[in-house]
């Protein structure tokens, strides 16, 4: 256990010292600023009512952390494996008296801790900035807002874990850095665009002679963005709605995320344990 924690700590420190990752995080923070300004403008114009403001605030936190956080997670996963594989440090590490599963568990834990910390900081930064700017509309619902925040961070983390694990998997399976990242980015594009594309779904439906709405329903099963929309619509952002009820309404989407994450985790373990590290 101590070996796992040591590796996790080192992985966390490596990520925290990666200057290229900071550039990715800065791009992420620019997006956060854009959303912040946009919500503030709605507030100034008076076009958003009190309960809707908190909903919009929570939605922004989840949207930012998941959709844009997906890119960040992709880069974190790639960087965590590629850095040590390229420099040969992983060869040295697995030559030490530690199990391979300790290495991969430690690395994954370090990365997850880094992402979790980043999302928590993002959420706190976003909510506190909005509170400073538009405190009067949020004051009455602060408790409801903070009670929902941990759930939203966990949902976002589950979502981005898919992209993180995919990039770890690709980098473990493919020796070439460029190729591994290209495949990861390609996966990101394909999974976010194809299932939700009405053009492609209409084309396939016409070709197969099936109903477009029916096919769209099937494609939504594999569309992670749609799952996030379903979770959003369950009332999780609404302070007047119970969190438990909201979670029970969207349990299927949670189960889907958990199954995908577990399957990818298993694939990452198998590929890392069985593959020669070069």
């Amino acid at each position, binding site marked *: 256990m101590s070996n796992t924690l040591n590796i996790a700590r080192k992985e966390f420190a490596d990520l925290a010292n990666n200057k290229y990752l900071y550039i990715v995080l800065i*791009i992420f923070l620019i997006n956060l600023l854009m959303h912040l300004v946009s919500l503030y403008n709605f507030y100034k114009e008076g076009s958003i009512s009190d309960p809707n403001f908190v909903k919009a605030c929570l939605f922004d936190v989840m949207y930012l952390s998941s959709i844009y956080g997906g890119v960040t997670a992709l880069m974190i996963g790639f960087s965590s494996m590629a850095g040590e594989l390229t420099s040969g440090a992983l060869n040295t590490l697995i030559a030490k008296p530690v199990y391979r599963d300790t290495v991969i568990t430690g690395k994954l834990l370090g990365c997850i801790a880094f992402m979790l910390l980043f999302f928590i900081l993002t959420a706190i930064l976003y909510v506190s900035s909005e509170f400073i700017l538009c405190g009067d509309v949020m004051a009455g619902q602060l408790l409801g807002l903070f009670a929902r925040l941990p759930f939203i961070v966990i949902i976002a983390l589950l979502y981005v874990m898919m992209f993180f694990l995919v990039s770890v998997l690709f980098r473990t399976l493919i020796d070439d850095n460029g190729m591994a990242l290209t495949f990861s980015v390609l996966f990101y*594009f394909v999974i976010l665009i194809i299932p939700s594309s009405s053009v*492609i779904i209409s084309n396939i439906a016409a070709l197969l002679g099936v109903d477009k709405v029916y096919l769209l329903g099937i494609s939504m099963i594999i569309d992670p963005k749609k799952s996030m929309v379903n979770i959003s619509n369950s009332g999780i952002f609404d302070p007047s709605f119970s969190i438990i009820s909201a979670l029970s309404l969207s349990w299927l989407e949670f189960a889907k995320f958990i199954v995908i994450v577990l399957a990818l985790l298993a694939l990452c373990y198998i590929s890392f344990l069985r593959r020669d590290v070069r």
Partner: protein
Amino acid sequence: MSGVLPIAMNEFSRIMRQPIILVIAAILFLILLVNGASSAQVIPEFLPDKDDVFLKVGVSNTMYYTSLFLSVVSMFIGVLSIAEERSRGTLRVLLAKPVFRKDVFFGKFLGISMLLLILTVTSVTLCVSAILIFYGGPLSLQDALIRLSTYTMLIFLNCVLTVAIAMLIGVAVKNILGILMLAGSLLCFEWFINIEDWLSSLLGSLKYIISQKMLFFTIMGPTGPGLLHTTMPYQVWLEDAAPYITAFLLEIIVVLVLAFLAFNGDDE
């Protein structure tokens, strides 16, 4: 020029063998074929229409995917062209040969551009041929040919600008992992972030310098209906799009010159 061509040919044959080109081309071609094969059912749903639905629906439906997937190819082969050779040490060997640095840089750029031109022409041809086979021809062959040629050229220019940006990143950043991370993030953020309103309020018309995707789609339809809408005469579209096309070309030249200057000043 004599030094540029062999390097361009070598670059062309090197990247042709990259499996990622085959994978992305296969996904794109499949989307284009499915679009063509379903056109017999899908296109008539939009009739009657004042525009030629062959272009407005058939070809236009594939514009986003064609530009997206070709941008992915352009970005990654662009960043890796110099960065990979530098990390393997083969760039040192190449620079030790009696060739100018400009030959190496522009040779690589030319080689990549040739491949992208072939990919773009193949994609558009495949898309159009599939629609021709399964649905039928356009209302006016001459008009369609002019518009399709311009469409192909614009998609190609979009790829060339992506390659120029990618080469600038590849030359300016020394660490290959850093290069890949920056290129990947830039690509994802460029295609997934809707920053138009924000950039408009902040930068006005200068927003087009920041967002390549925004500039590309504005060229396609600067004022309302665009290149693939036949109700807008080609001449009118061209007059509207000319300033944006000029900006696009200038951006390519500026980025390419910057990348070359960075490569030339490199102490590799």
